[in-house]
């Protein structure tokens, strides 16, 4: 059963706290400090639930999703966006269909774990209803 989670966030402490939460929930976490790194992990074969920060330097969350789709790296993943409130959303046009959920920062550890468990279940269900 796939219990792989990837956190894509440029903030080291966010990544670290997600790591701690995932560890407490026995989830297998991969950390990526940038969009580029996320794509690299995907190329190396990562498939799972991706927690994607939107506001990142150079390549933001939306750019990363576009690249995933363009490079055929999207299949087999579920993307949950991590948003601060009121971040610019003009770039999400046409990309929303690739996003399964939005999680507002800061988040409660229990809520996060509940969400991740839910999407992992979805990912591991043989019916490909999460694929678009």
């Amino acid at each position, binding site marked *: 059963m796939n219990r792989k989670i990837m956190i894509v966030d440029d*903030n080291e*402490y*966010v990544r*670290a*706290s*997600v790591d*701690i*939460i995932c560890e*407490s929930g026995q989830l297998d976490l991969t950390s990526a400090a940038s969009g580029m790194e996320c794509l690299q992990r995907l190329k190396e074969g990562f498939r799972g639930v991706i927690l994607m920060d939107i*506001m990142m330097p150079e390549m933001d969350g939306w750019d990363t999703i576009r690249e995933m789709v363009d490079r055929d790296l999207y299949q087999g993943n579920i993307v949950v966006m991590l948003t*601060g*409130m*009121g*971040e*610019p959303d003009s770039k999400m046009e046409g990309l929303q269909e690739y996003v399964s959920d939005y999680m507002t*920062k*800061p*988040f*409660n*550890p*229990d809520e*996060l774990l509940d969400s991740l468990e839910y999407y992992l279940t979805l990912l591991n269900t043989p019916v490909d209803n999460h694929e678009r």
Partner: protein
Amino acid sequence: MKHLKMATEKVPILLVITAVAIAFVMMVANRLVLEQIREEAVRQASRQQESSMAAFWEQTSRHGNLFHIEDGRMILGDYYVLNDSNEIPDRIFHITGSRATIFMGDTRIATNVMKADGTRAIGTRLIGPAYDTVFRQGMRYRGSVDILGIPYFTAYDPIRDPSGKVIGALFVGVKQSEYLARYNGIAVKITAINGTLAAIFVLFAVLLILNRRHSEKEIRTQLLFQQHLLDTIPSPIFSKDALGRYNLCNKAFQSYVGLTREELIGKSVFELWPEELAQRYYDMDREIMEATGTQIYESQVRYADGSLRDVMFHKASFRDEHGTPGGLVGVILDITERKAAEKERSLMEAQRHRSRMMELLLIQLNHDLNTPLTPLFALLPMIRRKVEDAGVDRMLEICQQCVNQIQGLAGKTFDLVRISSDRPRLLPVNLAVAADSALGDVSNALAERGVICCNAIDPELKVLGSAEQLTLLFKNLLGNAARYAAQNGKVVLSTTSREDEIVVSVRDDGVGLDREHLALIFDEFYKADSARHDLTTQGLGLAICKRIVINHDGMIWAESPGPGLGTTIFFTLKGDSSGDPLPVLYDI
């Protein structure tokens, strides 16, 4: 305009004088020519009389060469009696066309000169200068003579007897009237032709004058119209001639400089303004007159009424057909209001820019605040779960609450920025659904204090608004109610209709407010005393509510019977009339 008038007045007089002069010259020339023709005619008449006389003598010589008087009769040759011998004068008349007479002494004895009654003038006498010349001086006479009152061109030759004594005379002559008839005909024709020409010329001059008068009238009308048009234009307009003198201005220009048209026209800048200023104007005008095209520049001028105004000068030189500068025209545009509007606009633009910058800053701040909050928010509960020491747990609880407060503040501040920055599109929204959505968000807070919420809003009621903002509005109001309602109290949401407005009320049974606080609670960061030290609030909730209601063109206010007696917040929204059944249209 005066110069033009003078010029147009001079021209007709000149024209008339010229016309009359030409007519006069023609008449004089006519006269001279006719005089010459007449002189020639008279000379011809004299020559004719000379040859007639020669013919007369030739005729008489056929009968003899000697004349004498015998028994009261004049005899030619030996026997030819000349008395009543009219055939000789008649032959002369036939040959030459001249009348002829034979005188014995001074008496006509044979003649074809007729008396008034048509009979021959036999027996009448010769008088006057011809008589004197022929009979007294014994010489021949040539010239004009009145015969029986009618003027003749004449020739008299004395007849002498063999002793040389003058005994009579031969006469030939033509009536001047008959002889000059042809000349008179010519004279009449020439006079008529010349007269007609002179008349045509004068007529032409008159027509020209009339035409000019008409053109002048048209020009005057046009000038009048032009002046009227200029006076109607609110911008000062003027023009100057090549010497820099004003030759045109409108009313706006007069009030601009505070001088009348009469005081301005024909004056140069040196006659109107102080030397130094005039010299500056003069130099500027020179520059413009020498340049081509329109010169536009902005300036600030003081009108005659004392007002300082921003103006734009448009000046251009005008040139005649040879390209010589003939003066300049100028228009002054008052752009004071435009300037003020521009300034206002740029101020507003700057204000908008500042707001936008502030907004971006707050968004950035919100993000930057949320990022470090995320680990704190995520890790604190986990740490507390691992801590067994009650004292440490209490400390962590305080930390947790501080983090909550920071997060709440960031969220609320962001809410306020977002709803302030853009005005939402107002669409039909189900009000009860928006309230329910908010209730879901605050249900935990309500449950914590055992507060029951009763949503009594008509489930079908629709208002014009933004679903997102209305939900936020209810969330803030219910959040407040959850905080200030009585323990295990009750919050009631209800509506009433007032004309096209919906009045929504959120009533709690909590702490209530005194009069002085009622108006202040909608201010940013205001907290009622009891809440001043409440770390879970930010004092922004009702300010956000107020902003949202303003965005919906509504009003918000609070009512409270007093402290401890509960508070009701009211706000108004526009009802959605589009949901009403459509009026039935009948085809007529």
